[in-house]
């Protein structure tokens, strides 16, 4: 044992003392605290929303699409003019865990404070240290969020929070293992898995009774990741789950695409193996939620199939919309996924059968990955090219049907209209219209009640007619 490792327990103890006194001066402890804060910020994937494409880290500016309009992520660098440099630790904690800004106004729950509410005081302390001292200040304020009426009033959120926000930080369950508790703390808290994977009610609050049973992230389906063997990840080993979070794919099962690829790219791949292991243990214990449509595991559909041999010698139709699925597969897919959809020998280019990409009854994610491909921001870059600029809606539908028919779940059917909708960012949200309608109805009701009340009063107060 060398000197530095001998000192570790002492440093840790010192760290505790210092953080308790909230008067950190020891540079070694500061470094450890900052490092811990950085790890936690990575786990929280703060960068995903708070960094614009090509922009400086945490400087905000990204327009986060929500059903009620775009919410512009704020600058959370320690700039005193443009960021959160003036936040006290308490103000920081309130923003992260209660959704309340320093000026007392409410954040919209696009900021996953409903999940971050679980974060412990010690971890908030480390996050605060990191954002104040470990992040470079950027002196530029993104434009403010402007949501349509009635959502431009933030005070509604106080009511919403009263209904849906659980303000208690995570408390370990002594009946469960340490790993389970660590996993639960991360999944429910910083990694905020439920933000996308838990279904939401009409008021956009997570239905906690159906934890991780499947939700949405923009147009993407955020699948059921409960322990159900058919609909969820019940058939996955812990090693499969860890590989998926570390590498973005689990051999013979699934690849992360869309927002999940972002989560792996920005966040999960950097978590320690023990934390990923803990998350896997927790996920495997989440109560199973079964969808009766899933008659077999999603990653068990399909088999190797060569549909191209029959194409040889057949001229391509001039009208690209008349190309067959096999012709489209030949032109765009076979090169990497191979003639029979079997992928490369080492699985680096995945097989298309026994793959969640083709095994779902809802093929929206398949369509989206054909359109957008899979791109990471790290050096690994383009994992799969997107074909939005090359393929028409009709071609994508033909191809996706060919894929689900031969390599996946044949009950999945894709229409050109569906592709068009997904290409445009998914089905439009009617929340704004609904809210306005609801308000109009309420206003009308109030008016009717007032009129009735006035008339009754008038009747009571008017002299009796004889």
């Amino acid at each position, binding site marked *: 044992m060398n000197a530095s490792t001998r000192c570790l327990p002492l440093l840790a103890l010192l760290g505790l003392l210092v953080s308790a006194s909230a008067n950190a001066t020891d540079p070694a402890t500061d470094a450890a605290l900052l490092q811990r804060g950085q790890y936690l910020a990575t786990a929280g994937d703060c960068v995903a929303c708070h960094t614009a494409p090509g922009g400086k880290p945490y400087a905000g500016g990204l327009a986060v699409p929500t059903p009620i309009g775009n919410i512009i992520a704020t600058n959370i660098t320690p700039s005193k003019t443009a960021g959160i440099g003036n936040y006290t630790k308490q103000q920081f904690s309130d923003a992260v865990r209660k959704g309340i800004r320093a000026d007392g106004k409410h954040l919209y729950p696009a900021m996953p404070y409903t999940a971050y509410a679980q974060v412990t005081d010690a971890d908030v302390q480390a996050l605060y240290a990191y954002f104040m001292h470990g992040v470079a200040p950027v002196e530029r304020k993104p434009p403010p969020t402007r949501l349509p009426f009635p959502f431009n009033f933030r005070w509604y959120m106080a009511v919403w929070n009263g209904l849906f926000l659980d303000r208690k930080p995570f408390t370990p369950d002594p009946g469960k293992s340490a790993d389970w508790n660590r996993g639960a703390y991360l999944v429910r808290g910083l990694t905020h898995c439920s933000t996308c994977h838990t279904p939401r009610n009409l008021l956009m609050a997570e239905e906690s009774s159906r934890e991780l049973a499947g939700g949405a992230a923009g147009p993407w389906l955020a699948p059921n990741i409960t322990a159900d063997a058919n609909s969820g990840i019940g058939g996955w080993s812990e090693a499969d789950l860890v590989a998926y979070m570390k590498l973005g794919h689990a051999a013979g099962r699934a690849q992360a695409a869309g927002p999940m690829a972002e989560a792996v790219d920005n966040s999960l791949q950097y978590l320690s193996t023990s934390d990923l292991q803990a998350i896997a243990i927790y996920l495997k214990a989440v109560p199973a939620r079964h969808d009766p449509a899933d008659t077999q595991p999603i990653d068990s559909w399909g088999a190797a199939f060569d549909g191209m041999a029959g194409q040889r010698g057949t001229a*391509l139709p001039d009208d690209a919309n008349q190309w067959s699925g096999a012709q489209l597969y*030949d032109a765009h897919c076979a090169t990497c996924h191979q003639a029979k959809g079997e992928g490369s020998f080492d699985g680096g280019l995945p097989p298309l059968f026994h793959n969640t990409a083709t095994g779902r009854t809802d093929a929206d994610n398949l369509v989206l990955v054909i359109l957008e491909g899979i791109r*990471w921001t790290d*050096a690994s870059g*383009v994992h799969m090219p997107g074909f939005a600029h090359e393929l028409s809606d009709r071609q994508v539908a033909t191809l996706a049907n060919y894929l689900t028919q031969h390599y996946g779940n044949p009950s999945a059917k894709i229409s050109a209209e569906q592709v068009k909708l997904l290409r445009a960012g998914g089905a439009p949200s009617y929340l704004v219209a609904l809210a306005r309608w609801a308000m109009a109805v309420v206003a009308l009701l109030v008016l009717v009640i007032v009129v009735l009340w006035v008339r009754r009063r008038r009747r009571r107060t008017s002299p009796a007619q004889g």
Partner: protein
Amino acid sequence: MSGQLSADIVVIGAGIVGALAAERLARQGASVLILEAGPRLERARIVVAFRNSAFKGNWMAPYPPSPWAPHPIYVPKDNGYLVQAGPYPYPAEYIRAVGGTTWHWAAQAWRLVPNDVRIKSLYGVGVDWPLSYEELDPWYQEAEEILGVAGADNTGSPRLKPFPMEPVAEPWAMRRFRERLAPAYPVVANTVARNSRSYGGRPACVGNNSCQPICPINAQYLGINAVEAAETAGAKVVANAVAHRIEHDAKGRIAAVHYYDPDKGTHRVTGKTFILAANGIESPKLLLLSASDKYPDGLANSSGMVGRHLMDHPSTSLTFYADEELWLGRGPQSPSSINTLRDGAFRSRHAAYRLDFTNISQVLNVTNDLIKEGVYGPEFEKQLRWRAAHQVSVKNVLEVLPNPDNRITLSTEKDALGIPKPEAHYAIDDYTRQGAEVSKADFARIAELMGGTGLRYSADGQFANNQHITGTMSMGNDPATSVVDAFGRSHDHENLFICGTGVMPTAATMNSTLTAIALALRTAEHIMPAKTAHGIAAPADGEASLA
């Protein structure tokens, strides 16, 4: 007359060279119009055409010529577009389409070696270039960063900055060549514009081994990437616009380009500055076609040198069976070569050369051989397996010296639009033949080191062509002996610039595309200096992914 178009910069030819010059100028704020004689192609159709083709080894098969902008085709028979005047055939191949000939290149993106630009001074042969290797270095670098080039550091071409990426993983066969030929011959990675990692928004090579005729996944940089980048920067591309005359004004400045659409409707495009980038055959053809009373020998041709000094890289080869299984065909088609013979005092006597190993799958060649030999049944399968595993091939890439008699002229034959076809006058001189002779000893030594049997040399006096059309509009300081100056500006017309391999005064021993791009970027800078530093044209991968 229908249609009037105008732009600050009019580029003729939407190949990799013209498009990258256009892209750079468009990014400086110039309005840029690119005229392309051929049609717009789609990668998907090319991929399917290749897979459906009965002529897998014919890299022109997926690129049928358009009736209005034909290009040479030789298989199954010569379409007669490039008229052969002899004495030696010059069966050049190129593609007239948006994106140009790099649709089916092997992405070889070589620099010259420094002495290539001084062979007259050093060895008393050829001509010197009007610029030094050192002047070219930053332009090479800019080109390499746009294309995403990787290579070895010991190919004889020094560099000030590193390559933007590492080479693609070395295929097994190339590793065995490297191990078994050392130390006699250092086998090194070729310098190629092929992604070994995600770069410029394009994926890494997955080893389809069909670089020629088409990279199916956009892992190697193609002219179409340059065209799309130019369009993103604001340039406009007009496809199916067959330029047939360049018009000058009374002062000799270029005023307009006239083009035919496929129905022979005529159009006139005006501009301030014109860039001719239609390759080493079509560009001189257009200059010669544009003869007028004032310039009876064609434009830019006061020296009489337009079309002359046609050069390429003839190759001879040796095919043999190695004594171990090498299984060519895994990874890119042309990954490795020997570069120690590109320069030396011998250049005063005979041609320098590179020695290049093919990594193209041998299954097709071997199958054809066996059918020709009448082998069938179980023996066929046994032989096919053995030969495909053991057969290898090495070729030389020989330097050709500039000779005014090797030239492109206008033929009396005309194409479908009534435009005279190009005619090639070509001979291979003793300097090149002597180089081929010397290289035979290298072939023999390589075969010996690989335990080679069944040695088959290409027939004496038979040279394969490499489609590196060079020299037909050479640059130089003297207007009496050259067509353009060191910046590609025509000596005769102040606002006419020529970009492409045709401006290279000598062919040296490397594939010519990267040098043409470097020169074109330098030309673009000369026309309109960059306001900001240049480098990667495409957005960084991270930016693209979040957009």
